[in-house]
């Protein structure tokens, strides 16, 4: 069960921001390699996003895992919808599915970005 207050905060964040990354550390100073990779992917695509540092809040650290039913951090939300963790972001970037998802949801990004 997710604490209702924590769930309310998550709802507010993912509804007020097109793209939200729940992560360890901040986009400028990620505290974990997986979170850093997720930030890199979003930066590479030029996507504006809100980073939420779950290390700064113990209730959120467990709360986001229960909320998404996903055991790991980082976690990406686009337009209020859970997309996945850093491995899924990597796979979706390589297949172009991440770009398609952003476009389909009307989120601005740099379409010319290519991964070698």
């Amino acid at each position, binding site marked *: 069960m997710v604490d209702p207050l924590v769930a309310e905060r998550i709802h507010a964040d993912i509804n007020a921001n097109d793209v939200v990354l729940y992560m360890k550390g901040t986009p400028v100073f990620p505290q974990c390699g997986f979170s850093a990779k997720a930030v890199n992917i979003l930066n590479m695509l030029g996507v504006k996003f809100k980073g939420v540092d779950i290390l700064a809040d113990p209730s959120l650290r467990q709360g986001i895992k229960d909320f998404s039913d*996903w055991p790991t951090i980082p976690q990406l939300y686009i337009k209020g919808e859970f997309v996945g*963790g850093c491995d899924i972001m990597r796979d979706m970037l390589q297949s172009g599915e991440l770009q398609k998802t952003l476009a389909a949801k009307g989120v601005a990004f740099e379409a010319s970005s290519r991964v070698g």
Partner: protein
Amino acid sequence: MPMTAEDIERLIVQALPDAKVKITDLRGDGDHYAAHIESAAFAGKPLVQQHRMVYDALAVPGTAPLHALSITTVVANQA
């Protein structure tokens, strides 16, 4: 007790009997692994669900959670 590569492979195959599993110990510290899993059970399922199947397989009560596991899932061609 941290999980060994063999533990991870065994748990995944228990849940997905057809799975071809390749585990890499990324740092040789028994705590950071990459798992490459090929199974026909992933067919037609979104990536999120494929990864959840792997997480579920590894969520065994009494075992310490892995510190870091990178997952790659591949849909096996059905014969």
